[in-house]
């Protein structure tokens, strides 16, 4: 039976490597949030909503926020501030490819947290943000 188990495990691994679901990506942030904060309970869509819309004063003097480029409603396509290139919707309800590639999610959190907050985001913030995006119907 062990052979079968190995084969099944291999198939499962292959499936995960090829395409993760947003829930799987979110799980890695849950694990990190627990590690960062032993009293962590769960992510909050409401906190993610607030985080997404919060206007921050950047050291350049500009008012910045996630929503400034991704629009107030994450179901909508946004526009790049400098290049005018279209940004596809963030909400998986409008763009099913979002949050299905853990490395890509991390890459953009790393960049955009620096762009807006001028620091890295923690797992709680990333998880709240994703939970908000996933709550949008």
């Amino acid at each position, binding site marked *: 039976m062990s052979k079968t188990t190995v084969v099944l495990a291999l*198939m499962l691994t292959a499936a995960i490597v090829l395409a993760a679901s947003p829930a799987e990506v979110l799980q890695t942030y849950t694990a990190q949030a627990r590690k960062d904060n032993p009293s962590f309970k769960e992510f909050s869509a409401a906190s993610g909503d607030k985080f997404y819309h919060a206007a921050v004063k950047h050291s350049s003097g500009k008012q910045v926020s996630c929503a400034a480029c991704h629009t107030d409603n994450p179901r909508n396509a946004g526009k*790049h501030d400098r*290049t005018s290139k279209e940004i596809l919707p963030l909400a998986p309800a409008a763009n099913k490819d979002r949050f299905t590639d853990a490395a890509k999610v991390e890459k953009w959190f790393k960049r955009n947290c620096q762009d807006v907050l001028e620091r890295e985001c923690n797992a709680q913030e990333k998880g709240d943000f994703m939970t908000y995006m996933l709550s949008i119907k």
Partner: protein
Amino acid sequence: MPRRTLVTALCACTLAFALPAAAQTAKQSPAADPGAKWKAECSSCHIAYPPGYLPERSWRKLMTGLDKHFGENASLDDITARQITDYLVGNSAEKSGDRRASRFLGSLPAGATPLRITETPYFRRKHDAREISPEVWKRPKVGSPANCIACHVGAEKGDFSERNVKIPQ
């Protein structure tokens, strides 16, 4: 041996899944298509600008400052950054063989290391005020000289020929 049959069936099933997937990965891997990573990463926020329009020294400088990329954080993991640098350098103005690439290169003063294609003398000459009125750059559909595709409709395919220019009103 039903158990063996089951294992064989599962193996066959795994292969059926894995082989097309492996073929697909191979098609997208940098070895098979050296430009795939460049295209995917460099076209997220703007069109993937042609490697042949800047010299090697410009690409090397640009790729070491991705954390401050024209005021934005565009950092990449080290492996991806190295692969893209290799692609840019391998197809830079010195190596591209493209007619227009040699004009970009020829227009540069020795030692100049522009980080923007729009800073090169060749670009400036082709887009000077007699060719393009300063008002055109301010039109909402244009916005900036960096937005090649606003007028060069084939820009994403590397087509910058004059007959394929359509300036939006």
